[in-house]
């Protein structure tokens, strides 16, 4: 498990899979949302999706096929009697390797072009091309012109689905269409019924009429004629329409949708406005019209032509060509129609099962997401998760896309998204781009998780760091201010701020003349009160500060009043208490010193006898070797005792600070030179080499030379006493930052088995066994004396290295 966590491949795969599934889930969800909306295109709307699979797809495709044929110039070929050429150029059509049969007939029902005769099982769609004929010559030229135009811009022609009333020639072809439609399409539009009254030759349509005899809008075929005339007047066209006859209701919806998608590509969805002309919706910009019963009329213009002139010509009559496309719904041939139908069926299947698919994808993305979060942050050769590489970029940059998206309303690029998916929808941009956002979001969660696991959230959040820094800066600035400034600034801010607010209130009031005088008086009183308050607070502050620094002062209470005066009294009594305690302590210290001094005196007298008699004993000739040994032992002990009696008084006095000091300006370097002179022989006796580093500049200190000598003497005698013979002793002197630092470093002869912190305690020596010479008070005395002179002495032990650091404040030049 741990190994898996640390594998880079596992991490990457989990992350990518989670992202992918999340993306797909969101795409599905987005599609669901689109379906649920009112403006969803019908051909993928949820309600019609199932029908679309089985039926509407053919209708839509047939309309598309008819348009393609027309674009290929099929009418022109037929009119010019070049049907064979047309077919010869298209071998698949000629050999019948298509799923549809094509035929073009003229107004008289004469077949101008046909590839093969459709079977009974075929569904036929009929499209009519109507063209104006003014004179014979005009007609000729016009059609020729049109043929030339078609190759360039096919939209100028209009196709018309079979209308048996106006075009009896196409009636035969329409028969199977109607039959199929009624058989296959259960939701036959009732509006189709009245239209069918004009088509008595279609029995199935009569059945449909029987089912709903009174329903729907009684739209006559004549109305269509009238409408076409109306449109010609309305748009001033010379031309040519394709309209789709509402033969069986629902099919036209599909064709209409198809047409909408074709014709509205260049328009923004919101612009598809129409107006009503009689019963018809007229989409002017779309060049098509939809009748109340669902018929769609395409209106074309001839480019370079002046339509108004044509319409004003009363001699204009219209002739028509009928294009029939009969489709074999079994789709045996492997043509583009079959391919598209299959694709559309697949898509439709997916759409129906969208919810299930979405849930499955969501589950997968969750599984991989959790796995990914478990692995994230772990890397090889690390005990804990780390954030590195891309996870160290500032958190702000990670969040920035979201902030930007919300700031700009997330609409960037939405236009093309809509166009790209052929959607006309009022979804807002965020829904349409949701999958992208979801993946971004997931990435955010991922990097967030890594940072949290690696405890790097704070350090990679730059805004937070910046705020912290800014706050620290401000706080430092405020802290650096003196108390009186803080007080003054704060009070002034309150005074001025409050004053401005009050003034504004008064000026905006109706009683300003009445209020202004009391306000001014109040402000004056306030100023006086504030100044008094500030003075009082500052006095107390200064007093407390002085007391806390150990100065023997009292808080001046001359300007204090009321509670502040009492407060000053308390502070003073605290100060008095402390002074009393200090005095007590000093007294007790001096009593102690006195006691020690007296004891020392009393010890000295018998000690004198001991020393003298030992000396006399040594001079006595008699005595064994052992006696001499014993005498030597007593001699050593008496010498130690002698030193001890002196040192203990000094230590006690130094600790109590009762040694008299007569400080004066003195050059440390002179003192060090004297010290070296004094110790030269003692160091040489132990073969110790003094390595010195002393700056050239004079180091003047304000100190008692005798006492300072005592300190150096004690340190140096330690060096001479305890150093390993034949080693080097380092004396380093520096004079930086207003302080002189004298450092003694030597190698101890015996292991230093004591804590350096206790070395300066009384009676502590490096070897802790007390066998060597010395009283063990040297460092203690040195430290006390140094402290009394305002310096400091620190002792450090590093293995056998003994280091004493003496620091004295230099005299300011």
């Amino acid at each position: 498990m741990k190994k898996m966590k640390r594998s880079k491949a596992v991490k990457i795969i989990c992350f990518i899979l989670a992202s992918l599934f999340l993306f797909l889930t969101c795409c599905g969800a987005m599609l669901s949302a689109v379906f649920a909306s009112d403006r969803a295109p019908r051909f993928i709307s949820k309600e019609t999706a199932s029908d679309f699979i089985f039926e509407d797809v053919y209708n839509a495709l047939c309309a598309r096929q008819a348009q393609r044929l027309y674009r290929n110039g099929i009418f022109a070929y037929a009119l010019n009697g070049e049907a064979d050429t047309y077919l010869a150029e298209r071998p698949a059509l000629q050999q019948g390797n298509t799923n549809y049969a094509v035929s073009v007939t003229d107004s008289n029902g004469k077949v101008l072009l046909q590839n093969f005769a459709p079977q009974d099982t075929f569904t036929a769609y009929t499209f009519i091309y109507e063209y104006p004929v003014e004179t014979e010559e005009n007609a000729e030229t016009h059609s020729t012109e049109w043929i030339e135009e078609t190759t360039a811009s096919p939209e100028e022609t209009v196709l018309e689905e079979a209308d048996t009333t106006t075009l009896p020639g196409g009636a035969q072809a329409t028969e199977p269409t109607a039959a199929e439609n009624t058989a296959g399409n259960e939701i036959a539009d009732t509006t189709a019924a009245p239209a069918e009254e004009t088509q008595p030759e279609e029995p199935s349509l009569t059945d449909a009429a029987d089912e709903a005899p009174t329903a729907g809008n009684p739209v006559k075929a004549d109305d269509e004629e009238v409408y076409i005339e109306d449109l010609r007047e309305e748009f001033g066209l010379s031309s040519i329409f394709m309209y789709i006859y509402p033969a069986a209701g629902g099919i036209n919806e599909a064709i209409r949708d198809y047409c909408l998608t074709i014709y509205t590509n260049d328009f923004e969805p919101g612009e598809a406005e129409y107006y009503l002309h009689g019963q018809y919706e007229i989409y002017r910009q779309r060049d098509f019209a939809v009748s109340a019963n669902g018929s769609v009329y395409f209106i074309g213009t001839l480019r370079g032509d002046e339509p108004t002139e044509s319409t004003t010509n009363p001699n204009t009559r219209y002739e028509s060509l009928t294009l029939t496309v009969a489709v074999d719904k079994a789709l045996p041939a492997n043509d583009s129609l079959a391919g598209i139908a299959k694709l559309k069926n697949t898509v439709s299947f997916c759409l129906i099962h969208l919810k299930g698919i979405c849930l499955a994808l969501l589950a997968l993305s969750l599984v991989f997401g959790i796995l990914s979060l478990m692995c994230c942050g772990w890397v090889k050769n690390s005990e804990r998760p780390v954030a590195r590489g891309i996870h160290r970029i500032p958190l702000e940059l990670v969040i920035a896309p979201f902030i930007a998206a919300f700031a700009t309303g997330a609409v960037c690029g939405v236009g093309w998204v809509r166009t790209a998916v052929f959607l006309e929808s009022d979804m807002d941009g965020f829904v349409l781009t949701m999958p992208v956002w979801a993946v971004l979001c997931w990435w955010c969660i991922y990097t967030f998780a890594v940072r949290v696991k690696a405890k790097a959230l704070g350090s990679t959040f730059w805004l937070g760091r910046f705020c912290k820094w800014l706050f620290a800066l401000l706080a430092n600035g405020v802290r650096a201010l003196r108390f009186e400034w803080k007080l003054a600034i704060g009070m002034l801010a309150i005074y001025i701020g409050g004053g401005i607010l009050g003034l504004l209130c008064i000026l905006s009031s109706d009683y300003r003349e009445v209020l202004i005088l009391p306000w001014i008086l109040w402000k004056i009183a306030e100023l006086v009160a504030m100044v008094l308050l500030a003075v009082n607070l500052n006095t107390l502050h200064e007093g407390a500060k002085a007391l806390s620094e150990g100065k023997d002062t009292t808080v001046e209470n001359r300007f204090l009043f009321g509670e502040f005066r009492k407060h000053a009294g308390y502070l003073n009594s605290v100060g008095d208490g402390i002074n009393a305690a200090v005095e007590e302590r000093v007294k007790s210290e001096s009593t102690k010193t006195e006691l020690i001094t007296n004891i020392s005196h009393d010890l000295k007298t018998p000690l004198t006898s001991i020393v003298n008699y030992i000396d006399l004993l040594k001079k006595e000739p008699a005595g064994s070797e052992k006696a001499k040994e014993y005498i030597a032992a007593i001699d050593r002990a008496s010498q130690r005792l002698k030193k001890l009696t002196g040192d203990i008084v000094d230590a006690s006095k130094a600790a109590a600070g009762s040694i008299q000091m007569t400080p004066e300006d003195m050059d440390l370097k002179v003192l060090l030179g004297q010290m070296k002179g004094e110790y030269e022989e003692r160091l040489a006796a132990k073969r110790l080499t003094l390595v010195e580093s002393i700056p050239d500049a004079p180091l003047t200190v304000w100190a008692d030379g005798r006492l300072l000598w005592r300190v150096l003497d004690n340190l140096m005698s330690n060096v001479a006493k305890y150093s390993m013979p034949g080693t080097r002793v380092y004396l380093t002197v520096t004079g930086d930052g207003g302080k002189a630092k004298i450092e003694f470093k030597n190698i101890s002869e015996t292991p230093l088995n004591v804590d350096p912190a206790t070395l300066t305690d009384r009676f502590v020596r490096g070897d802790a066994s007390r066998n060597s010479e010395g009283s063990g008070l040297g460092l203690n005395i040195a430290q006390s004396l140094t402290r009394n002179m305002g310096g400091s002495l620190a002792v450090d032990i590093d293995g056998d290295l003994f280091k004493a650091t003496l620091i004295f404040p230099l005299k300011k030049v």
Partner: protein
Amino acid sequence: MYTVLVCDDDRDIVSALKIYLTAEGYNVLCAYNGQEAIDTVKTNEVHLILMDIMMPGVDGIRALMKIRETQNMPVIFTTAKSEDNDIILGLNLGADDYVTKPFNPVELMARVRSQLRRYTMLGSKQQTNVIAVGAIEIDDSAKAVAVDGESVSLTPTEYEILKLLALSPGKVFSPAEIYRTVWNDEPYASDSTVAVHIRHLREKIEIDPAKPRYIKVVWGQGYKIEK
């Protein structure tokens, strides 16, 4: 044959000192408190007194004051009071030397000798070309130095240093000044040459070089000779 009075309330110390002094060839008188000392001095010819300060009855200070009314023999205080104030007080009252207990008997004998020499030589006439500071006599023509009448052999450098200090008694000479004058050269910083020579000089002139009577170290400043 000089007579030395030893006055201490501790009999052991008195008898020990008596042994040492007798061995040195002095006639020894003993006293065990201040009053006895005063009485002894009245009835005997005493050349030097060794006296403790803290004694029952009349203490050393008062005894000294009493004796000084009539006598001017050298008095050395031998006392346990080692504080600076005590020493200064003792010397101011007319003591000639001050030795703190526990003292080194050999050193004490040296001091006794020194004081006696000075005392007995007192009144000997001053020669020209002789610089005298306390018990030190520097005969510049002979380049000879005598301390308490006893000649001391010094190296030329030591002699020059001593002469420099002795010509301005009480003046503090910094090591650099001494170096410039004696070596006739510029010293370098924190040089210890002068200090070494001074120490040698001290060892030759002083009885206890650690507590010099004449050549004093002014720590951090320089050296001087006591007036």
